[in-house]
């Protein structure tokens, strides 16, 4: 079994020596492994890249996709930028809020699902775009919310 350290070294090899380019891929890997970037996860990344945990934290906190607080096993991300907003994104977000019983940025009490509002996902002609576990669903309507949530509960 390859360890996290080894996997990171393999990523490192794609980039010039002494560069820090492997930071983002390594953070993504650590997040997949831990579910979020806990203190321990950040320390692991730092250790594998000969960087300080503070540096890794600094980088991670810059990017929206890195979770610095415990997150659910699943994520539902609703685009609420203008193009989706013009075609009812807010209603879609609210449908998920009702369905999950949490607000945007929150995780269900059972730790299963994190709901987030996100900026433009680049699917503007098929609003509303909802990324379910990072896979885009197009033309989502408020009526689709229960089925999507149920799907996650089954999976």
């Amino acid at each position, binding site marked *: 079994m390859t360890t996290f350290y080894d996997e990171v070294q393999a990523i490192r090899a794609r980039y010039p020596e002494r560069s820090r380019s492997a930071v983002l891929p390594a953070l993504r890997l650590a997040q997949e492994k831990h579910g979020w970037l806990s*203190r321990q996860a*950040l320390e692991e990344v730092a250790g594998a890249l000969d*960087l*300080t*945990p*503070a*540096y890794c*934290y*600094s980088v991670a*906190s*810059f990017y929206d996709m890195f979770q610095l607080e415990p997150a659910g096993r699943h994520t539902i991300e609703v685009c609420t930028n203008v193009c989706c907003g013009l075609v009812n994104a807010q209603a879609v977000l609210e449908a998920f809020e009702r369905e999950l019983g949490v607000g945007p940025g929150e995780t269900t009490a059972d730790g299963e699902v994190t709901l987030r509002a996100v900026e433009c996902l680049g699917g503007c002609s098929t609003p509303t775009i909802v990324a379910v576990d990072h896979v885009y669903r197009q033309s989502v309507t408020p009526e689709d919310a229960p089925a999507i949530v149920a799907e996650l509960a089954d999976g």
Partner: protein
Amino acid sequence: MSTPELVRVRVDEREVHVPKGTGLIETALAAGIEIPVFCYEPRLGDPIGACRMCLVEVEGMPKLQAGCTLTAQDGMAVKTARSSQQAAEGQNATLEFILVNHPLDCPVCDKGGECPLQDLTFRYGPGNTRMSFEKLTFEKPIPISPTISLDRERCILCYRCTRFSSDVSEDGQLVAANRGAMSVITTFEDLPYSGAFTGNVTELCPVGALLPTQYRFEGRPWEIVDVPTVCGLCPVGCNVNATVREGKVKRILSRNHPEVDEGWICDKGRFAFTHLRAEDRLTQPLQRVRRHGLEEVSWDAAVDEAERLLREARGRIVTVLSGSETVEQAYALAKLLRVGLDSHQAMLPEEVSGALDAYRLPLSAIRDADVVVVLGDVPVVERAPVVDLWIKSARRRGAKIVHDAGDEAAAEAERVVLVWSGPGGRGGATVAKLAEKLALAGREGCGAFYLPETPNGRGVADAWAACCDEEGEPVESIGLLVVSGDEAAADDNVRALAEQADATIVISMYGGLSAGWADLLLPGTSYLERDGTFVNLEGRLQRLRRTVVAPCPDELEWISQLAARFDVDVAPYAAAVFGEISERVYGGLAFGEVGERAPLRGYPEAPEDVGSQALPATEPKARRGEIRLVVYKPLFSGAAVERVTELQFQRPQPELELSAEDAKRRKIGTGDLVTVGSNGSAITLPARVNRQLRAGIARVALEHANGLGGIVEVAKAEAEVRA
């Protein structure tokens, strides 16, 4: 070096000629024009153009430009806010934006009165605010370490501090987190900002966001005076200012000597000054009274007693020096003991050699080197912290850092600098030999440094040697041991000598060090309380000033008094004493000519070997597979540091550093407990694998070594298996 091409630049109505590539901020200054800045600080590396305070109009460019990011080009025409309405509006806008979130707590801000934001707002800023919404608020102040407080509301996010952390000290601990308006400066989780140089961020901060906690509410700018002096806590001799209020040192600031420290000082130099006011500071002499132990006596009585002890032991007196005395103190003592009492034997805690005098150069030459050879296994930062910054600076500029004088790179490069960082090294004689081998003498930008353990070992040795030509016979049995300074008083070897001596006089700031064995204890002063000179590791003679009056008489005062009783003429003033020694060592340089930022002068007559006898030190060589334990004195140790509560977090962890090779062979990983032993005694410590360490070397801080040293056995601790 070829002379750089001069270019003509017009700034507002003035024209200047500067070397091509000169920064625009400096170019404008050359024209006598200030372009205001916040984030710009050339010592932090390339400009980042973040704060937008330096907006200027440049002919041929449609938009305002961040002046700090531009360099002088021939024919360039720049209009600053003085002559460009657009630039003035730009600056005004920047200040308005900066002040949108900046709190108006200037009256209770320690930076008030010496704050660049206040000054620039006064000169360029808007007179009122149009911001009627809630400012960003944060919990404040937050201690980011026991020595530094962070006020995030005041922070204007100029990124000077984080650039220092990543690009100067390279500790990577102080970082920016989040994005946009939510950006904050932080450390990782709850960890304190630790390291040798953290305090510099308090001086870099252009607002009252990062402040030294020791100085919190301690003084207003109009109540203080900054006294220029030199730090006396390590052999670098960083140029500092001591901020004094009502006769007390309140703060230490850097005083940028571009050849010595470039304006960086270490946290020991910055924060350890409160040792002056330590509770156990001696202010009255103590004399051992049979069956009563040490008892306080008057200074008159103490001088009488000293006279008696000296008289009794004439010719059989051994003096132990700390290397932290001023040149003048050492000379005065030498004159008293050598001329007055025919006692020539002195010991320094380390060897001092003049062999390096042929390879002298300013520390700043390290930055410009092509190859820096760092020899020895004591971390540079623990011995001479700022030297570590110079080496890092060299590496960032592309220099090769190697650890073997035989490295091909050293033989081939143009500018080569050697740095010896102990242990051993015969006071620099070893590294001088290596420099000779590489034929570095007289070559531009080439030279060698030896990092001594004591701040003024060279100056003390020079003074002792120069005072008298006689040599005297080695002392068979010690009649009187004179121990000068806290470092000597804290040395176990000295204590052992004291036990052989008939009597012992100790000059020390703190009684505890020698309370068990001194017969007469005379209160000593700190470098911050002395007038005089120090010679740093470059061989640079620098001036110490009395920043505050000591709570006890100056050493020169009572030495002079005592000397008179033996018909020796020692002046009680540093200037006069210096004049005398200068005739012999410093080419007759007058005290007043030493200089506020002293130049690196040559010694008129470099003595071949000024070393006096050193205390015994053994350095057995490790054979293949063996491990030699290098025990180093950490930067954060010693009598002063021990008395500063807020520096305790900086002391080294109990741990054993192991090379990657040795660790692998023993299947030891970082965090594993290991036993280190030799001759039947052993200690157990957590291991830390250090990829920088040579195979065959293990390293531990003196305070965790438990007396171990030399060749040791290292193995994974048994208990670890069960745990």
